[in-house]
């Protein structure tokens, strides 16, 4: 059986992934016509390249349809319940850095921390008759984070894009989103809470615990030696 390596199919994340592997003597490239999602691996035997949307890679890993996958650590935590049972982090790759943060209007001079946000949520609910709304697409990560910090009286509203605009549009009072530079937040009159972020994400090489490994173990051993990645117990 050949080892299936899932990598992002387009954009900077794909290019940086190719560079990361290339710097370690494993060449990944797309093959065929420019719009065709096919790829090849050189420098190590028995490995097939599978080009996928970064957001589908967590699910494919959990289902065991790919053995290894490159995706953001935020996506794995968000899309997989109990993610550590499903996948193993083989290597943080040092690019694709982004923080999942909670932001509130800059005009809220009285709010700097989650401690403040919790107090404001209680007062907001008492005054407006509904729970303070936080717009995000990272429901699981955010809920776990707010529960761990004991924030109550909030509700999550789903926002799959342009999340920074929801406060101005009166569909949310606060937001939680990925940011790398914070420019979009500033432009939308928002500020980040001072607490540690919900999650510091980066592109990460994951291995699927539940995949059928069989002969692919040999390819894994060769690949990990080439990449200089230590394999955890059980692999």
């Amino acid at each position: 059986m050949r080892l299936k390596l899932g990598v992002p199919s387009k954009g900077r994340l794909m290019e940086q992934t190719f560079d990361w592997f290339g710097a370690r003597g494993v060449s990944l490239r797309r093959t065929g016509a420019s719009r065709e999602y096919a790829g090849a691996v050189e420098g190590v035997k028995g490995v097939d390249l599978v080009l996928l949307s970064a957001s589908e890679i967590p699910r494919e890993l959990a289902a065991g349809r790919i053995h290894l996958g490159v995706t953001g650590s935020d996506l794995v935590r968000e899309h997989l319940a109990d993610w550590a049972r499903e996948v193993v982090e083989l290597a943080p790759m040092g690019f694709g850095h982004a923080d999942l943060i909670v932001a509130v209007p800059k005009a809220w001079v009285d709010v700097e921390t989650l401690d403040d946000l919790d107090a404001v949520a209680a007062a907001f609910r008492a005054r407006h008759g509904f729970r303070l709304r936080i717009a995000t697409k990272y429901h699981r990560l955010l809920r776990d984070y707010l529960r761990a910090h004991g924030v109550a009286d909030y509700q999550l509203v789903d926002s799959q894009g342009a999340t920074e605009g929801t406060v101005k549009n009166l569909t949310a009072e606060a937001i939680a989103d990925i940011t790398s530079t914070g420019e979009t937040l500033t432009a939308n009159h928002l500020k980040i809470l001072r607490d540690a972020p919900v999650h510091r994400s980066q592109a990460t090489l994951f291995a699927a615990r539940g995949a059928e490994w069989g002969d692919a173990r040999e390819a894994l051993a060769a690949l990990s030696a080439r990449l200089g990645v230590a394999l955890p117990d059980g692999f």
Partner: protein
Amino acid sequence: MTGAEQLAADLLAKMQAAGAQPIAAQVLQPAETLLDLYGEDIRARAYVTQDPRLGEMMLRPDFTVPVVQAHMKGGAEPARYCYSGLVFRKQEGARAREYLQVGYELFAREDPARADAEVFALFSQLLEGRGLRAVTGDIGILKAAVEGLETSPARKSALMRHIWRPRRFRALLERMGGQGPLAEARAALVARLRAGETVDAPQIGLRSREEIAERVARLIADADTPPIPAAQVHALEQLLALKGPVPLALAELRAQDWAALAPALDRLEARLEALEAAGIDTATLPFEASFGRTNMEYYDGFVFGFIAPGRDLPPVATGGRYDALTAVLGQGRAIPAVGGVIRPEVLEALGCG
């Protein structure tokens, strides 16, 4: 009929024989009511689904809410209800996602101590001979202790709001005692606000300038409130850690001579007498002051559980008093209520079905 279903039927029949009227509840419950009660956390515990006309619905995570709603719509008083059916909870790992609950709920205005004792004694009798360990607690004592702190009403209500979140409660208590990272962050914020620091940003969103100004004023007033005395913080922490047989726990609490606790301790003593009268051996009955602070968010007085010692199993039974819940669901009306549930599958797993 499976073993657990047989157990459930037997338990339900015994509850009926004890005077309870069987009551049914829909599996699909409006999500909004449950979300308003439990907050967003319930989404991590209950299954949510969508109805094209009714909106978000939840597979019932428990019976208490629909039973209270049914009673508030016009039940006689006092009332005793029993029920049996599946509940649905998301779980990590291999634990059951859907399981039976057999429950008993008592709504009565008179003599709360006797009502508490009636429910506990019934559960004790239903579960007799199963080798279970009973635990009791009393959220009312914790509430009385918070109410009795020498501090502002705003701080008391902030603590009260988080009684069921022990970590957050501790962090707040530390801040209000003037200690720890939250106190430092707060002091820095207040210093900036006092200096009249302004920000160059438009007001956006529903939260108005007026609301922001009000909280700024509250923050400054709070900074002028003296810290909660260290001795009181310590006493409260001691109280939270208290464990022992009920009579000893009561004696220990009385010995602290904490005036604010007296009415709650009188209630505990009255319950102790009622339990004795109901045939419970209270001399060895365990009391844990923090029991019921997690996962039992609506209980606000007497709480109890029956646990299989040394087994990695969920509690066989849990219950307690939830007077405040009836007020929330009753839209202005309220009635004291106490009840509990038994999980027949857990009983069956004990191998004494």
